[in-house]
């Protein structure tokens, strides 16, 4: 029954670009996949391991900048750049982890905000990386999978984003079912109790952070190739870190499908208000987000997944 439902859903999603040829619906779907994947990556650290990070834009930005710089300077295919970005994000995440994992709860969250701001400021002042002006991704024609650029057949981006989401879901599912998933959740529930049972708390946090950072960086590379321009304001902002968190919280943290569900609701809302109301709509989607967050906090802290479960 559930398997059938999933296969049907996957079928619809696979056929969507062929059935709906308009660029806007396809763009919205692509963004749902991207933000679903980003929120899913965040969920591994925050939802399962209980470490609420508000600095995930750091890894997104690292992914975007690494592949772009490698592509510009050495014509390295963005696919390799994507892997390099993920590797660099893992390294940076482990370095960040040492100081910030000593903090708990709100203090951890605040520290991750601070790290995010530091990294953004750093890149703004880093001339070699284009500073505040940012970097263009050199355009290569014709379209090629190798260059991860699709100017004529933008539907290809749709499938790359879908692949990213499926990868994130697959990793999450594997973690959920493995020993690691149990240890992550034990750390989330009670660090002292977990330690008393032989769980190396710091190591589990670092592992969750590494997985989460790597997957987030993949999304960053995708973003760079999709938009073909990156600057610190668009790939390192605090607002992105918060949006990633928001998507997961709305959908339901610590669940496999929560982040996807959250993205399916929030992304169309954001994109929609922007189109209907133009530049003036920018604040409106934030107001709606705010209202939604308050509604979740009061009515259903377990998010939309909690709502679905209660229905059953």
């Amino acid at each position, binding site marked *: 029954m559930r398997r059938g439902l999933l296969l049907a859903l996957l079928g619809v999603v696979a056929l969507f670009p062929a059935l709906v040829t308009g660029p806007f619906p396809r763009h919205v779907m692509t963004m749902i996949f991207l933000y679903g994947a980003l929120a899913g990556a965040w969920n591994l650290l925050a939802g399962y391991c209980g470490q609420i990070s508000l600095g995930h834009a750091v890894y997104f930005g690292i992914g975007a900048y690494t592949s772009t710089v490698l592509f510009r300077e050495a014509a390295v295919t963005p696919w390799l750049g994507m892997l390099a970005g993920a590797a660099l994000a893992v390294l940076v995440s482990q370095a960040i982890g040492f100081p910030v994992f000593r903090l708990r709860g709100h203090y951890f969250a605040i520290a991750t905000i601070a790290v995010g701001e530091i990294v953004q400021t750093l890149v703004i002042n880093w001339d070699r990386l284009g500073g505040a002006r940012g970097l263009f991704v050199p355009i290569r024609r014709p379209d090629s999978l190798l260059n991860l650029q699709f100017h004529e057949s933008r539907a290809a981006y749709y499938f790359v984003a879908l692949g990213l989401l499926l990868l994130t879901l697959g990793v999450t599912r594997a973690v959920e*079912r*493995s*020993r690691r998933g*149990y*240890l992550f*959740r*034990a750390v*989330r*529930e*009670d660090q*002292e*109790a*977990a*330690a*008393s*049972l*032989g*769980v*190396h*708390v710091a190591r589990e946090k670092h592992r969750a952070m590494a997985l989460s950072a790597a997957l987030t960086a993949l999304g960053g590379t995708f973003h760079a190739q999709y938009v073909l321009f990156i600057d610190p304001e668009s790939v390192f902002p605090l607002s992105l870190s918060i949006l990633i968190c928001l998507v997961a919280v709305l959908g339901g943290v*610590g669940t496999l499908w929560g982040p996807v569900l959250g993205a399916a609701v929030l992304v169309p809302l954001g994109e929609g208000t922007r189109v209907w109301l133009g530049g003036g709509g920018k604040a409106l989607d934030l107001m709606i987000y705010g209202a939604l967050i308050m509604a979740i906090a009061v009515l259903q802290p377990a998010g939309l997944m909690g709502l679905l479960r209660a229905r059953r």
Partner: protein
Amino acid sequence: MSLLRVAGLTKRFGGVVANRDVTFDVAPGECVGVIGPNGAGKSTLFDLITGFARPDAGSVRLDGRELTRLRPDEICGLGVARTFQKLRPFGGMTALENVMVGAFRRTRHVGEAREIAREALAGVGLGDRADAHARGLSTGQRKRLELARALATGPRLLLLDEVTGGVDQGAIPALVALVRALHGRGLALVVIEHNMRVIMGLAQRVVALQLGEVIADAPPADIARDARVIDAYLGQAWRAGP
């Protein structure tokens, strides 16, 4: 040769000395009770032994191996398990999942961990609550859950911080019987306990603490007659009583 040797253990919190020169041994398979009024340093002693706090002086040796520089998870890995005075279940996980976390100390396989956890739950009489969420269990059941979780790590030495604390009177005998059964299987135990009836029936030796210092270390019958213990802890009524 003793299994656990605590020697000269001292811990200060600011100006307060929580443990001063605490020394005692636990032999393999022995059950040692720890008593003392509130604030005597009993839980601090457990924290020092299990790596949750670092002593200012003294040593803790398990089979001759120094524990005081190790992390809690490393000490668990050497075969020392503990429960907490304040219950700390993994509330968002089922009873079975709670115990599986402990079982992963012994195996990397989820299936095997599940089996170990089922056995441990059945062993404490929670076999039928395996799929219940930990936060839905009663206090007595949660005490049993913590016991099962600690046992699933396969310890040689188990430290129990007030097993009967906060449990209603009716549930105490069954819990005590459970602990006695563990002892009967050869597990070494250190038991913090306020209920004197329980400790008298359970422990082979009792260490009495007052203001962080050991004021007596003797078999239960002698402890009950020790003047200092009576003054510090048991009270005059005890002297006149049983």
